[in-house]
């Protein structure tokens, strides 16, 4: 266990450094984009006087490095700053959206992960059967069609035609938990469709890969049933690659859902990030990107811990 604690500490320190580098890269990237916040927000109505007044109001007339270090200093003091655009404190601006994004991601994951693993195991169990082929074709079709198409088809059938679910995911802070589950069902299913294939096929491949190993052959010679061989003997050894794929897909559910947010008009982080980039709302872009970076770092860390725990050889290195 000390081993793991040490690794977690190391990875956390590295993670902090990564975050610093990322914040620098994002800052520079936004700096390099043509136009700044004042111009972007005023759009067609930008006149030189308006732009100058606006820049001065926001401190955009200062050199880039000063703005960056001022921002970094504030962050280290726990002050996330204010949005250029709405002048609201960023923590209140994004708290609701972070919650919405995590809620939808968790909802989709709760549907997608068990379904993907079950179908993957069953597909491995009945390899090359009609069932295996059908599951594969369905999953590959779902993952190959763009998200908005899957979403539109679901909306057409379940919202417009049958009227079971609302076509848009409008929620407020007063929406109850049960209502959320109903309103978000279609977005969650859309996300399930686009993430499931990857996890399912990895499960299937990892298990099939192991089925050729001598110890599985031994188990079979002992006369064990196929189901028991797969669940008790193959699956634990196949967990490491599966956990990694699941982690990547969970990260995707948090950072990559902007299309689904737009199609369902769902107020999540993705839309906020897109709007903020197009308006060059620097402080919001920074925080949103850092949240995404933290997501990746944490999920990767969890995946590594999971792989280590699932593999006794890694737990007791010589």
């Amino acid at each position: 266990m000390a081993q793991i604690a040490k690794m977690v500490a190391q990875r956390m320190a590295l993670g902090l450094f990564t975050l610093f580098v990322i914040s620098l890269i994002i800052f520079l990237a936004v700096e390099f984009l043509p136009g700044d916040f004042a111009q972007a927000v005023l759009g067609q109505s930008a006149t030189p006087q308006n732009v100058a007044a606006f820049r001065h109001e926001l401190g955009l007339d200062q050199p880039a490095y000063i703005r960056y270090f001022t921002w970094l200093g504030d962050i280290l003091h726990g002050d996330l700053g204010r949005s250029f655009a709405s002048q609201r404190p960023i923590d209140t601006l994004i708290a609701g959206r972070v919650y919405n994004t995590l809620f939808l991601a968790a909802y989709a994951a709760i549907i997608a992960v068990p379904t993907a693993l079950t179908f993957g195991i069953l597909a491995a169990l009945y390899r090359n059967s009609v069932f295996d082929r059908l599951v594969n074709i369905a999953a590959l079709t779902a993952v190959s069609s763009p998200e908005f198409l899957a979403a539109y088809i679901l909306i057409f059938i379940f919202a417009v035609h049958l009227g079971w679910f609302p076509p848009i995911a409008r929620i407020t802070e007063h929406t109850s938990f049960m209502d959320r589950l109903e309103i978000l069902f279609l977005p969650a299913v859309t996300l399930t469709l686009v993430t499931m294939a990857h996890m399912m096929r990895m499960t299937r491949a990892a298990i099939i890969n192991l089925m050729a190993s001598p110890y599985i052959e031994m188990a079979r010679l002992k006369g064990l049933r196929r189901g028991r061989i797969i669940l008790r003997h193959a699956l634990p050894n196949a967990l490491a690659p599966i956990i990694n794929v699941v982690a990547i897909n969970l990260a995707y559910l948090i950072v990559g859902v902007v299309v689904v947010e737009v199609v369902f008009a769902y107020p999540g982080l993705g839309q906020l990030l897109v709007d903020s980039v197009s308006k060059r709302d620097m402080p919001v872009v920074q925080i949103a990107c850092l949240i995404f970076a933290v997501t990746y770092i944490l999920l990767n860390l969890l995946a590594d811990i999971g792989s280590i725990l699932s593999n006794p050889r890694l737990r007791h290195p010589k």
Partner: protein
Amino acid sequence: MNYKELERLFMDRRITRRQFLAGATALGAVSLASGVLSQPAYAAPTQGGHLRVAIGHGSTTDSLDPATFENDHTISADYAMNNHIGEVLASGEIIPELAERWDTDDAKTWVVTVRKGVEFHNGKEVTADDVVASFNHHRGDTKSAARSLLEQIDSLETDGKYKVIFKLKAANADFMYIASDYHLAIKPSKNGKINPTDGIGAGPYKLESFEPGERFALKKFENYWKTDRGHFDAVDILSIIDTSARTNSLMTQEVDVMDRVDPKTVDLLKQRPHAKVEEVVGFRHYTFPMRTDTPPFDDNNVRMALKLLIDRKQVLNTVLRGHGRIGNDTPISPSNRFFAKDLEQRTYDPDKAKHYLKKAGAEGLKVNLSAADAAFPGAVDAAVIYKENAAKAGVNINVVREPNDGYWSDVWMKKGWCACYWSGRVTADWMFTTAYAADADWNDTYWKNERFNKLLKEARGVLDPDKRAEMYAEMQSLVRDDGGTVVPMFANYVFATSDKIRHDTLAGNWNLDGMKFTERWWFA
């Protein structure tokens, strides 16, 4: 006029309910009229209901400050929360709103008398101080988009509790239209300043909550001074950018109103049982401004040739599916009262264009045309059609597809020739002053015509409508034949409502009944 004609006008919604009743009374046909009015479609407004609106604009970077209002999501909330000095009617004429009256002798000094006994949402009475503070928010060192509009104000002061005196630098007969611009919401002042983001106004609805780029939740303001307006109990204005999501929401009755119907699917939407599609001719127009200070566009023969080389009907039918009108290279819409009817409509004419090209010595002309869908939806398609049209006269238009991002800061007014749009302005003077006057910030053609600019200044001081009409007609012909803008078409406002929504004649000064729909519409 007999009663039948009057009834026809009303049925076509060309006159309001009030005008219809007044007319019928004058004709002694009140009983006939009340028969018509008792039909469900023409019944008096009913109170109550929860209006839900889906607007195709809105961004998480929006704020409540009127100085930053620039998209339909915030503008529709502006008209729900706030009142302005005057209100533009469906006829295009302006009447006092928070002003009780306004007076001027020379169009240079305007005395605005504030309506007495009007309350803000916080209970404070609207006074002259509030008007001055609200205007000053947009003057001087400010980011407000209304700043350049108000530069014509020389001084602005109160005279007693209810009078405001505007002294202008030069006469402007249309000043009350400018003073009623949507940015110039009247808000309560405290120590001579307004709090721009408090969301408090004197409009028909109070702000309950605002999530930028998501929704405005509004509640009826019980003490609203117009007792016959603002019929809904509550209003939700949602931002739903995706056109399909907006359309689905209307079809499933999740919302009662949607704006910006996709021209491609409008005919399908018309067949849906609960949907009603509305179309209004407005001032919005699409343009291709050429920089008249940059070769080859500095030669008017080249400009003329290019104006003759676009097939307006084809562009209108392709890009807008016919939901608009063809333009005549002037920004003045046929719905404007000073529209020059006698100006000949310019048509596609490659032969005549060749003649002008020869005169300019520019046969086989090669030009770049920058376009992006940020300019207007379908701008790139329109540019490609233009290219094909122009090829007939040997002109090679190279369509440069620009990124949407940064279009207004890096392409518009920078590149020699590009695509652009204008929401249009309710008066001819305003439109010309904004984008055609030599010293305008947005003179996107860098066009400096002496005669035009002289007329523009003169016309502002003229109060006689016939004389003004004549002057504006000459200005339109100057813009058409010498200016740098190609105006191929005017776009209609196309929106859809649930069949439960009722309204009077729709205004065309902005989208959605001049953006006053929350105040003017009601549920059957």
